């Protein structure tokens, strides 16, 4: 008993010395949610210990389910005044849905001094201008090929439509994870603006439907496509840049190409549940994660693209190329999937995968 209370007291003292502003929360751990598995392991290993050392804030790591299940759990819990995690990493769609429902706690902009490091699309605001979240990690979806089948790398997304590639493609099966509507719009319609009307969406789907004879697999399971890509069974498709690079570095005959039209830049963001009782340390964490050297560390050890601009980081050319590119990215129009998601998904099932 005595020993335990001594430990508690000394932990509190250390925390107090290191971060006086979070005195009230020193005894309460900050619960940080990241996707269970690879992400959680990486954060437990490379990020959380350094964060605690730097700020004195103890972290309890929470495994989030993927998909929108976590959003549902957070909103149910918030109704009961509980927060299963204080800070959560959310994909953009559930992040936006939470914004519409007012689920995220507004943050004090003056306490997040590193906010200026982030580009606008990684600073999330409510309509009244209050900041409630920041870009956490981002990753690219690129055009990937098997190097045995394709001696030369394709340079454009138009390769997907090439009749020479009949029955050779593996593409992601959902509108909301493949972002092929944005790719098609950028490649053939001069940009993603056309997707802002229903007619435009149907026009783009009509163009995208032309790839169907080339598609052998509409995949939900990443492992299935990666295996097929490595063996050459399905020699072309869309996939994650960092994972493909990792496979190539292990001697697998695969390559990832940033097409001329740009690769898809998808991301996850930090948000704080409005039911959280420890908003202040949560802000400290969000601020900490927006530092260029922390983003560089993520790129090196977790394989994500930095959310801050490249010049701020000390990444070498090689390190940067492993996770990102200077080419203008294709940014998904997440809003359309929140506003017209059911309709787009239904049309997608009927016209693209159906």
């Amino acid at each position, binding site marked *: 008993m005595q020993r335990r209370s001594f430990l508690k007291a000394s932990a509190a003292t250390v925390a107090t010395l290191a971060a006086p502003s979070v005195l009230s929360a020193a005894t309460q751990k900050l619960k940080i949610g990241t996707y269970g598995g690879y992400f959680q392991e990486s954060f437990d290993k490379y990020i959380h210990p350094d964060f605690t050392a730097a700020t004195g804030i103890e972290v309890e790591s929470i495994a989030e389910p993927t998909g929108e299940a976590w959003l549902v759990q957070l909103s149910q819990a918030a109704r009961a005044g509980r927060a299963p995690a204080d800070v959560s990493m959310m994909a953009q769609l559930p992040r936006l*849905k939470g914004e519409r429902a007012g689920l995220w706690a507004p943050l004090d902009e003056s306490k997040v001094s590193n906010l200026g490091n982030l580009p606008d699309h990684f600073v999330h605001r409510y309509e009244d201008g209050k900041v409630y979240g920041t870009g956490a990690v981002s990753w690219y979806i690129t055009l990937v090929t098997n190097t045995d089948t394709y001696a030369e790398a394709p340079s454009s997304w138009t390769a997907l439509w090439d009749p020479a590639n009949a029955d050779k493609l593996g593409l992601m099966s959902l509108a909301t994870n493949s972002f092929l509507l944005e790719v098609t719009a950028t490649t053939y319609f001069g940009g993603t603006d056309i997707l802002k009307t229903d007619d435009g969406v149907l026009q783009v789907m009509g163009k995208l439907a032309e790839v169907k004879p080339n598609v*052998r697999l*509409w995949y939900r399971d990443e492992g299935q496509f990666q295996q097929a890509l490595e*063996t050459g069974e399905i020699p072309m498709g869309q996939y994650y840049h960092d994972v493909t690079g990792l496979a190539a570095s292990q001697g697998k005959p695969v390559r990832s190409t940033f097409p001329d039209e740009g690769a898809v830049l998808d991301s996850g963001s930090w948000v704080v549940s409005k039911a959280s009782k420890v908003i202040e340390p949560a802000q400290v964490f969000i601020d900490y994660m927006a530092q260029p050297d922390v983003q560089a560390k993520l790129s090196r050890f977790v394989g994500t693209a930095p959310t801050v601009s490249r010049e701020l980081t000390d990444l070498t050319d090689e390190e940067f190329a492993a996770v990102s590119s200077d080419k203008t990215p294709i940014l998904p129009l997440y809003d359309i999937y929140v506003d017209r998601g059911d309709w787009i998904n239904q049309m997608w099932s009927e016209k693209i995968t159906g």
Partner: protein
Amino acid sequence: MTDMPSQTAAPRWLGLWPAAMLTLFFLAPFGIMLAVSVAHRDVSGFYEWGFEWDSYARFLSVFFAKVMAVSLSVSLAAAAICVLLGFPFTVFLSAMGHTAQTRILVVLLSVLALSEVIIGFSLSTLLSQTAGIGNLFHWLGLIPEPRAYTPSLFALIAGLCYIGFPFAVLVLYPPVSRLDPELIEAARVMGASGPRAFFGVIIPNLRGAIVGAFILVFVFTLGSYLLPQLLGRSEHWTLSVHITDQAIYQSNLPFAAAMSVFLMLVALALVGLASLAGRERGAA
């Protein structure tokens, strides 16, 4: 009624136990599913309790009619193939020695221990262009170039049959092994040929078991949602795949629940028809 002590080994109230379990683990979840299917879809990721037919109305479209037709025909085909293969197999099996029978049944049972994921991945490798049987056929000179047999309807049905076959045999085995050999002998003595005895005596006698095996494989494969994704093309995605999409990826639980209710009703109707047919002709 009487004061005599009960003759049964177990007290009567013990029958309440299965009833309670059935309520707890079947009826209650089913009730929740029914309630969710008429709930109001909230686009921000969940649903609000209510009563509306929207989810059912959305299902009534040409697209989902097509998907339902794919689901039913794939499962019916798998069930038919499993019974067609399983019945003669079981008849031969029951004629074997005791040790051989046990060994074969153990092998069949062990297939049930494999998960759908393992079966799907194994079959997709086996039927692939780079590492599959196409290479063997090419080596034997049967085909000019190694080719892939997956994803295709053939691969999907093969996968479903792999899963369904042991069930068909296990349902057929007890009645087949109990079939009185004197029945066939009698038929042969009366002058029936081998095939005539098989189709005229064995099959009518085992109609109930055959229909049972057919229904079991049909219902079992109807719920398969992994194999259509791993082995089929997108036009072979079954209703179960679309239910998974709605429930997991689009968090539209009311629509997913409504589709499940539809699927269950259609399956129940078919099962009812099949068992009716089996019984009437059996009695005739």
